[in-house]
């Protein structure tokens, strides 16, 4: 197979994707499978990055529109570089697949900072260039070597207001107390934030959480799991679990809890107390097609408070730049996870701990919940 032919194959296939003859997602899946073993190099991704273009991969759904409205269009006006959003979902495995293909088609990924850190240590992610990206426009402690803070969300307690409206829960101890607060619970299937919740309920002081005592957390979860009606795997599912009454309390994302809170039925409310703050970040895949410099200047463009306000309005994400907090109208501040009043009730997840330990911890957690 020579390069010219490969390239030609790619042009044809990418054209097909662009004309909508194959769905991007389907195509990416097929390409990934074929790449795994076929000599025929179908090295095109869902969206093809090229000069004057950046491909930003996020988790899809409403985020596709939001990223474009908040950042993509403005960046194109300012620099002439088009930003294409792709909602494939930059899981650690997907980013690894991109990098290992030798010709990644993604530039920027909306990755968990701990994934970016761990992949960065393996040489798959570009270090963030803090001469271009302004660290001063981020909250202290949330600018990492391989990932730049872009937004925040929290794992918080959402509860059935019809059941507990008069006497709402006050923290993780109440979440794990089915005597005082009867009913089933819903927890997160992929473990993040759940170990901390179990330890807080077990009486560990917030400042003593890390490094997590996993054995203690898993024992607590194992003893409690019969009270858990479901382990939700995605945001929409967590909303559905709460609205359908399948759980009287859930540990869910604050972005989804805000949507539930705004629901006219008033069925589900939430608290910030002992919420677990989880940062979202942008990272750049090494050898990205659109070039490192363009990717860094895009990240720099996302620190603008006015743009972050759009993300808060559209997705309920808390802004990475503390200067944005003040722009949020008073009646909306209760939905901002990093608003000073809400932030002081919460605990931030320790990203470097996750970068080291997440894989093994999730393994044990999965064993326990599926046993």
């Amino acid at each position, binding site marked *: 197979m020579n390069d010219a032919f490969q390239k030609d194959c790619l042009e044809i296939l990418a054209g097909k994707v662009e004309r909508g003859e194959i769905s991007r997602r389907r195509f990416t899946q097929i390409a990934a499978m074929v790449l*795994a*073993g*076929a000599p025929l190099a179908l090295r095109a991704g869902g969206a093809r990055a090229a000069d004057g273009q950046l491909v930003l991969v996020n988790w899809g759904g409403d985020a596709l529109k939001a990223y474009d409205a908040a950042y993509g269009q403005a960046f194109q006006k300012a620099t002439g570089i088009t930003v294409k959003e792709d909602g494939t979902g930059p899981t*650690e495995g997907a980013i690894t697949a991109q990098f290992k293909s030798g010709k990644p088609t993604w530039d920027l990924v909306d990755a968990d900072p701990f994934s970016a850190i761990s992949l960065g240590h393996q040489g798959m992610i570009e270090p963030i260039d803090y001469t271009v990206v302004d660290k001063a426009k981020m909250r202290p402690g949330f600018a990492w070597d391989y990932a730049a803070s872009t937004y925040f969300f929290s794992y918080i307690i959402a509860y059935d207001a019809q059941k507990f409206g008069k006497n709402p829960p006050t923290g993780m101890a109440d979440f794990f107390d089915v005597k005082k607060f009867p009913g089933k619970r819903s927890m997160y299937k992929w473990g993040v934030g759940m170990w901390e919740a179990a330890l807080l309920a077990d009486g560990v002081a917030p400042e003593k959480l890390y490094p997590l005592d996993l054995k203690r957390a898993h024992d607590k979860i194992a003893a409690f799991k019969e009270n858990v009606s479901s*382990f939700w795997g995605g945001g929409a599912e967590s909303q559905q679990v709460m609205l359908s009454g399948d759980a009287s309390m859930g540990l869910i994302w604050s972005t989804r809890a805000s949507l539930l809170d705004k629901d006219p039925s008033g069925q589900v409310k939430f608290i910030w107390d002992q919420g677990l703050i989880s940062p979202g970040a942008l990272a750049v895949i090494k050898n990205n097609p659109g070039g490192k410099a363009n990717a860094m200047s895009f990240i720099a463009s996302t620190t603008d408070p006015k743009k972050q306000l759009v993300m808060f309005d559209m997705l309920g994400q808390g802004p990475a730049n503390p200067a944005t907090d003040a722009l949020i109208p008073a009646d909306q501040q209760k939905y901002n996870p990093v608003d000073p009043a809400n932030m002081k009730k919460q605990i931030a997840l320790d990203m470097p701990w996750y970068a080291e330990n997440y894989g093994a911890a999730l393994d044990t957690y999965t064993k326990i919940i599926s046993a």
Partner: protein
Amino acid sequence: MRASAPRLASLLLLGPLLAFLTLVYLLPFLGIAEWSVTLPTPGFGQYERLTGDSLVLSVFLRTFRICAIVTVVSVVSAYAITYVWVRGSRLQRSIAELCILIPFWISVLTRAFGWLALLSNRGLINAWLMGAGLIDSPLQLSRNEASVILGMTHVLIPFAVFPLASAMRAVDERVLLAARGLGASRLRIFWSVFLPMTASGVIGAGLIVFVFTLGFFVTPAILGGGRSIMVAELVYLRMFQSPDWGLGAAVSVVLVLIVGILMALLFRLARPALMGSAR
């Protein structure tokens, strides 16, 4: 295999299919197999890990248990529906046809959510039971293994219907008339004549359903409440969530091997039935 068909012609006819399967299935699979013995270090370490990994073992066991139940329930239900569809009156046939085809055309995802709408705590069934005063608090009907089995069975019945229908249509009416003429009761005709003559269809349907269920991902993920993890989801977990490509690849290879062995066994077992119904 009939020797009368010229070998070249049959190869030409099969060629595109073989080429397609090689390209999109066999080669990628060989790549996966290669990962399983090279990542992160060369050797069979991942396969050793598999045998000692309680999560992998429990997921395999659960998958086979669910698949077996779903297969039996689907094939038995499909047998009844197909009987009506093939041998019923005109009206019965139309009703059966609607019952088979409408679910067949609706996406698997939509149907999984449909079951949730029916079965959840504030769902239709609980609302109706509570309205009728039969229960005081909602029953936990969804997000458990039973709802996974229900949802999967619903998806797979149509797949079992088609092989059964072709087997039933092949039954010669005159044989049944002869049996009746010789004084057999209706039940006896069914047991001794009709069922044996359609046995190959039952085995075919069972095979198709079983192999389909092994790879199910969406239905258990939605209806299982995150607890009924099956093999497909385990592979996803290992490939994407906590990247461990070597182990994920080893799980995939083991799954393909198991399917292969099962197919070989079942074909061997089904041969008499298949030969018996050869017409």
